[in-house]
Each structure stands twice: as C-alpha cells, then as structure tokens.
C-alpha cells in the first residue's frame, strides 16, 4: 500500500486510550441506532396509551354506506366484540393494509366494522367493489361527525371494542401481518376470555 520509507515509527500511532474510547463510543452509538431501528417498525412505541383504552367507546349513530336509510349505532353493535377500522378511498395507506385486513376478516373471529371517514359515498363504494369488501357493515361518516370523539388523527386507524362497548386496543397507521399477529390477536384473546 505505501512505500517502505513512509512506514510509521512505532511510537507515532494515536494514543491507545483515545482509540479505545473512540471505538467504544462508536459501538455504543451503532448499538443505540440499531435499537432505534428495531423499534421504528413499532407504531405504538411513542403512542401514549390512548385516552379511550379501557373506557366506553363513544356513542354514535351513523347511516350505512350501502343503504343510507338504515342507521346503525353503538348500541346495536354491543353484545359481542368488534373491530372498527377507519378508512377512506382517498387514503393510500388504507389500500396497503387492505389485504391484511381482508385476511383477518376472513377468519370470522370477530366482526370487522368499516368506518368510512370523510369520503364521497360513490368513491367509497367503487373502492370496495375494486378491492373487495371484507366488512361486516360499513358506517359512513361523511362530515367526520364522530371521528373527534374517537380521537381519530388520520386514516387508517383501528379500534378493538369488547362486547360491553369498552375500547380495549387501538392501532394508528396501517395494519401489517406482524401487528395483527403480535398485537391484535393477543388483545383479542384477552377480550374473548373476558366474555
């Protein structure tokens, strides 16, 4: 690599202490970043528990997307647990989670209720036709009347409500296989045990 006459004299290197401290610092920093990266997939990590968790779900009455003359309210849904999924046809992330949600809904373990938020009914219907409708029922909240009560910050968001109408689990952002397996299913098991 270098010509012999430029070989270093042995005493010329950096102080060993400095090198060791530097190396430790570097390794520590990389370790910390690695930890951060591992946690970055976990949407819940910075979410302080939602104010709704373990509290009653908000009361609401909304028309059904497929038949606006029929109104469905929180009272009708009570009795068995349900999963409320906030989505909109304008929401690209909702499309990302749609296959995951569909796969989960097909297990029929729990009712999956769609909460169509701030959407045009025609767009929403076309969207469901195109990508498939996994929902037990779809509620249409065109003006976002109850979204504030649910504390919805953006779509998609998913809530697990138990048979007594108590919110037990919440997820912000698109569902993934991992989140379903590691978070939703354990939460659902707990809900089912309580019934």
């Amino acid at each position, binding site marked *: 690599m270098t010509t012999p006459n430029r070989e270093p004299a042995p005493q010329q290197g950096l102080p060993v202490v400095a090198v060791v401290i530097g190396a430790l610092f570097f390794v520590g920093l990389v370790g910390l970043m690695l930890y951060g990266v591992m946690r970055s997939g976990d949407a819940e990590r910075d979410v302080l528990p939602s104010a709704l968790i373990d509290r009653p779900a908000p009361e609401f009455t909304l028309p059904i997307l497929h038949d606006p003359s029929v109104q469905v309210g929180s009272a009708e849904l009570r009795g068995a647990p349900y999963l409320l999924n906030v989505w909109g046809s304008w929401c690209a992330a909702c499309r990302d989670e749609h296959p995951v949600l569909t796969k989960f809904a097909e297990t029929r373990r729990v009712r999956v209720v769609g909460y169509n938020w701030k959407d045009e009914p025609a767009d929403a219907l076309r969207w469901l036709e195109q990508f498939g409708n996994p929902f037990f029922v779809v509620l249409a909240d065109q003006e976002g009347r109850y979204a504030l009560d649910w504390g919805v910050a953006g*779509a998609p968001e998913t809530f697990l409500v138990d048979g007594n109408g108590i919110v037990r689990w919440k997820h912000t952002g698109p569902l993934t296989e991992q989140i379903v397996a590691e978070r939703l299913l354990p939460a659902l098991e707990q809900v089912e045990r309580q019934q």
Partner: protein
Amino acid sequence: MLPELGQVLLVLALLVALLQAVLPIAGAQRGNAAWMAVARPASFAQLALVAGAFALLTYAFVSQDFSVRYVATNSNSLLPLVYRYTAVWGSHEGSLLLWTLVLACWNGAVALFSRRLPEPVMARVLGVMGIVAFGFLAFLIFTSNPFERLIPAAAEGRDLNPLLQDPGMIIHPPMQYVGWAGFSVPFAFAIAALLDGRIDARWLRWTRPWTNIAWAFLSVGIALGSWWAYYELGWGGWWFWDPVENAAFMPWLVGAALIHSQAVTEKRGSFAGWTLLLAIAAFSLSLMGTFLVRSGVLTSVHAFASDPARGLFILVFLGLVIGGSLLLYALRAGRLEAGAGFQPASRETLLLLNNLLLASACAMILLGTLYPLLADALDLGKISVGPPYFGLLFFVLMAPLVALVPFGPLARWQRDQASRVVAMLLPWLLVALAAGVVAFFMAPQGAWKSAFGVAGAAWVILGTARFVWSRLGNGGRMTPEMWGMVLAHVGIGVFLAGALLVEAQNVQREVALRPGESLQVGRHEFVFQGVDQLRGPNYLADRGHVLVRRGGRELTLLHPEKRAYASGGQVMTEAGIRPGLFGDVYVALGESLGDGAWAVRVHIKPFVRWIWGGAFLMALGGVVTATDRRFRRIPQEKSP
C-alpha cells in the same frame, strides 16, 4: 414505460458508481493510470444517469401518472403545477433521489474542477465519492424505489402533504441537501489523504472552497427551514430543537469548526489530524442526519411507523462508511506530520478554542437528541429533551465563542502578545458594553437578554470592523478570503442581536375577538374585521381580516388563513405577517368560537428578520471566501 426506464437508469448509475468506487482507488494504490482515468468519465456518466432518472420522476408528477405508487401517494389532480415539481421531493423516496442527484452534481463538479490535482489524488477523491454514491443508489433501488408501480393505477392521488405546499418548501430541501452532500468533498479528500498516508497543504488548499460552499448552502437551508417553520406552523417560533432541526444543525456546527481548522492546517500545517477528523465528522453527521430524518428512529413529524428494513439498510451503510473511515483514521492519523508549534497567545490557540467550543456544542446537541432513545433503550421511561436543556447549554457554550470572535483575526499566527490585541479591542469593548447598558435600561421587558444581545452584537461587529480598519489602515489589502470572514462574523453579530432581542421582547396575546372588536398591544392596535371564505385550487380557507394600526396610523391589513385541504381534511394555518426590518407583526387565526367570534393569536416580534439575515450573511461569507483565487493556484512545490 417511462418509470421502468427511470429504474433502469438508476441501476445503470449503481453499476457506474461501483466502477467509480473500485477502479480509481485500486489504480491509485497500484499506480495504474488507465484505472485512475476511469474516475472522471464515470462521474459524468453517473450524473447524467441520475439526472435522467430524476427528470423521469418529475415527468411522472407533472403528467399525473397515478400508476406510480409514489406519485399517487404524494400528488393529486388538483395540485397546482409548481407543487407538482416540488412534490418530487415531498416524501421519502423522492427526497432520497434528490439527495443522490445532488451528490452526483458535487461528484460531477469535482470531476470537472480537479484537473490541476495530481491523478492519484483526483482518483482517490472521486473513488471515495463513488463509494458514497453507490451506497445511496443501492439504498434507493433496494428499499425505496420511487418508480414502483401501483397496480391497478389509482384514479386519484392522495395529495402532497399540505405542510409542504408552500414556496419556502420549494427551495429548503434542495439547499439542505446541497449542504449535506457537499461535505462529501472534504470527506473524500480526508479519506484520500489517509489512504495516501500523508496530508499535503496544497491539496488541502484545493478543498477549502468546497467546504465553504457546502457550509454556505447548509446555512441557507437551515435558515429557510427556520423561516418556513416561523410562518407556516403558526406558532411564531423560529427554532424548536426538534430532532430534524438538530440533524441539520450538528453538521453545520462541525462544518464551521472544519472551515476554521482547515485554514490553520493549510497555512501553518498544524491540526492536520484534527482537520481530517472534522472532515470525517462533518460528513458522518450529515449521513446520520439523513438517517435520523429518514429512518423514523426518532419521532418528530413522522406520524406513522416506518419500515425497519430501510433503517437497517442505511444503518449498515452508515456503520461501514463511518466505521471504516474512523478505523482508517485510527491506523493512519498517528503518522501525520505535526505542523509548526505555537504559543498560548496566538491565533492557533484561538482557533483551537473555536473548534473545541463548536465541537462541544455539537456533542451536547447529539446527546440531547439521542437521549430520549437512550432512556427508552435503558427503560427509563419516555423522556423528551426540550428547549430548556438545549437553550441553556448552547448559550453557555456559545457565549465564550462570541467573546473570542474579534480576537481571532487580529491575533498573529504562532506567537503574539495578548496585551497588543487587547489594547486594540479595548475601546470597542467599552462601546459594546455601553450599548448593552443602554439596552438594559431601554428594554420594555427581558432586560438581561436584550443587553446580552445588543452588547454581543456590537462587540462582534465592532471588533470585526476593527480588523478591517487595521488591515486597510496599514496599507494592507483585503483578500476575498478576509472579506468572507468579515461578512460571516458580522452575520454572527446580526444573528445574535435578532435571536436574543426576539426572545427577550416577543409579545404574544391570544384573545377571542368578534368582528369590530379590537386589541391593543403596546403601540399596536389590532381591529378584527371578520372572516370570509376563500376557495383555493385544492383547499377551502377561512380568511380573517385584521387591520393593524401603529400609533393611531393605519399600518397594514393582514389576512391570516386557516386552510382545509380537499384531500384528507388536514387544516393548515397561514399566518398573516407584516415583515419589518425592526420587527414583524404576526397574526394567526385560531378556532371559530361561535357567534362570529374567533380565537386570534397576535405576536409582535422585534428584530426577528435579523436571525435569517445573519444566517444569510454567514452563507454569503462562505461563498465570498470560496471565490478567493488563491485556492485555485496550486503551487508545484510544497509550501514551507
């Protein structure tokens, strides 16, 4: 087919970068001229390929091709044309492509302007830049492909984040990236010097303008980001110590230290090892900044979780580049020649202090930025480190630096008498202190901060003027390098006055007003004239009308807005601002409170423009310094 072509161009660029990373460096080590000669054409080819890919993505946005996932996610048929261009870098994939393009531009510029360098130096520098480009292109292609198709295509796009639909956001990210990526040049030079095993003042002189230009762009980028936050977020603040801001600020601080230490090493041969370490640090921090902003490791404005695969990829790349550089440094730095010695009272000592203070400030910010993550990792709970920590420590570390600024240019190299410089500056110190005392008693509030701001600014500006005076008075000549230094130091003074005066004398009121009601704040009277509806291209706005009178005379009519964007229903605040050299009047519209009443937030912000003015002066100083012809003359013999 055009998006696929874009993807092909990126893959070709990756291959070219690989070629550029391997052959020239190997050629330089073995003395193979043909291999070294690959460096330049490869750099130009890489620039052409990446620019082509960028143009194709831009075309996809302009032509509203919603079959491209990235376009569908970040654009919308209602989006005005200018924002379709800027939406290209509105999100992760496109930002990364812009980063890569900017890096390729620096790469091309180095290839173009390195003709006076000896072939092995040029080959190593371009080779190292090829390694960096390879990493970014691989990251882009394997984890963040902007050309990925959406099948079936979307009928309508989702829309660009409304926060980014703003003129300030058009130029802020490119400036920022030009600065960040620009530090790859001194970095590549440092690695080349370490590979070669010696640092030569002649080649170091060649890198100085590059560092200055990169630093100037970063200054402008940070200032624009701050300005944008000021008028777009509606809080009236200009700096929040947010992780993303810190990520940009850390390389800026180290870059400022690097500019100074490069000058010492070039002129005196001292600090050679330290200069190389700073060059490595500045670029490593730029990379880390990109990593922190892009990986979702630190939550700041990121709402959703990101893909850990991305973070992992860039972390591995980061670890290899930074770890490899530091390893090389540890192996080779010890054998660098020590420069001329110097005494405690000398310009070298002052520049050493400058470097230590800037580096400590950077370390302090790094600690504060990463501490919440560390606390989380050690299970100490959720902790956030906020402005009280950063503000106090930054003040403590920067106050001595401000005190020392005027001494630096006046002190002689190697050996000086402290009493000589002190005698030159003493009258100006007294003038500055007197100005501070006047400010203390005149300030309506925040007396101490006002006094520090005025005294500090006067001291830095007068002390710098004293340098110009003594230089010109002795029949000396001012080189562009000196003018650049003077401009940047005056910029520090201007910034200091702005930052401390606005912190001290900012007045803020939040009130409910009905149409016709008014609010008196000091000499200003705000008359609320009501709210009407305004239809924008892709939003609906509530627009307030607020008449401002100063001392009874009509000053201006302000129109703060609250915009609800058609897609997603996000609400954005557009503050109504009357800018002024000596202070802004700032009105933001809050919530409607019913009965025609609205929450209205009013700020009086004295001297706030000076903050950005100071930053632009610093940037201008960097550019003026870079124009010094001395840097472009590379003497054939090694300078003594």
